[in-house]
């Protein structure tokens, strides 16, 4: 099956509904789907739950989405950064909800969603405030916390190349959350540097198989300014 190759970023996120859970890839700027986030801001969907490692930096990208008051809840591992003033302000004003999740749990909970796992016992955060109120169990002499999947309605990720089927490869540490989020959302949209012909990516080197990818947008696609 061929992937949908979009000619504009806006087309790629046109159907994101209010109230959606949006998985947003990237770790710092590496792998961050900035053009898709900008298109999502233009698109106007609101009351979103955003799942991402951070909660926005500076005044662009996720921070701009937050500043536009489109996000009800952020689920992330590390909201507080030197330049997270947009999130900080909203949080202190009580205008945004926050679920802080250890980074490994964030990744593993999305993996569980993608893999059909109903829940899993995890050694992280035992005895800490982040496991308060959660079910625990001792297995083989070690204590574990029960963690549940995080599913997305949409995943917005950045990748290096896509072929026309939607097979993706990434570059270096820009890989980060992309492959996991691609398995965990109903609709997966990737901004990529380039779309190549099917057959140009060695089947041994595919990182995200085409089955997970719904739409790709190559660099240089249109950014439609709303009328």
């Amino acid at each position, binding site marked *: *099956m061929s992937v949908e190759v979009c000619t504009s970023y806006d087309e790629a996120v046109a159907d994101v509904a209010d109230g959606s859970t949006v998985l947003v890839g990237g770790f710092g700027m590496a792998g961050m789907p900035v053009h898709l986030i900008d298109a999502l801001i233009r698109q106007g969907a609101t009351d979103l739950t955003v799942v991402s490692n951070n909660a926005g930096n500076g005044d662009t990208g996720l921070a701009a989405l937050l500043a536009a008051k489109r996000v009800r809840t952020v689920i992330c591992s590390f909201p507080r950064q030197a330049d997270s003033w947009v999130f900080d302000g909203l949080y202190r004003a009580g205008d945004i909800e926050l679920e802080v999740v250890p980074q490994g749990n964030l990744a593993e909970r999305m993996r569980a969603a993608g*893999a059909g796992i109903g829940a899993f016992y995890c050694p992280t955060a035992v005895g800490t405030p982040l496991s308060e109120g959660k079910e625990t169990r001792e297995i083989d002499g070690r204590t574990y916390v029960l963690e549940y999947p995080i599913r997305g309605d949409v995943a917005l990720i950045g990748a290096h190349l896509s072929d026309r089927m939607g097979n993706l490869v990434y570059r270096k540490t820009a890989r980060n959350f992309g492959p996991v989020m691609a*398995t965990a959302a109903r609709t997966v949209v990737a901004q990529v540097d380039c779309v190549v012909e099917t057959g140009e990516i060695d089947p041994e080197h*595919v990182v995200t198989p085409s*089955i997970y990818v719904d739409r790709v947008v190559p660099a240089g696609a249109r950014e439609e300014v709303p009328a």
Partner: protein
Amino acid sequence: MTTSQTTSQTTSQTTSSPRTKHEIAAAIAADVAAAFPRGAYANLGIGQPTLVADHLPPGSGVVLHTENGMLNMGPAATGDEVDPDLTNAGKIPVTELPGAAYFHHADSFAMMRGGHLDVCVLGAFQVSATGDLANWHTGAPDAIPAVGGAMDLAIGAKEVWVMMTLLTKDGTPKLVPECTYPLTGLGCVDRVYTDLGTFEITRDGVTVRDVAGTTVEALRDLLGPAVLPG
């Protein structure tokens, strides 16, 4: 209950001499192939379901998954194409198509069990009226149990289609009120393709999608009201 009385293209020509087992399987496989959504990601179980691949129309865009770690598997390998490192789940040498991808076993079953495949086609000993599947074990006391990926496939795909003859050799229906063989999966079958018709299994019960060389009434008589109520 939606009942389509149109007989299917390929199984309707049951006229004169009795068909061979292979002809019957091929006819069912053709029915399954004709019903595939364009561009579907699909897993064809070991055995008769692999025949479906031979009946996919050119340009169907169907992408085949094999649970031993590959997407976009091509046809069986012949001659120089044979590579011992490239087989399907039945351990038969196969080929790769452009746009294929390889992955390891945990990723492959995560893909399957996470519900990413559109369709999985499986053989069966029995299917119950509520979609229970029995296809891994005859329950014979001396049989050595061997499940492979059957139970994962049964619960993994968005749609599970079974293809089988409707009756055993001695004429007993295999679409039954309740399975008597050990189960592979609970309530997992969505559709049953047989030599005598195709059935949908819905929350409300079994409905006939089409019949082949018989009538809905005759199927009711065969299967009984517990399976096909009037």
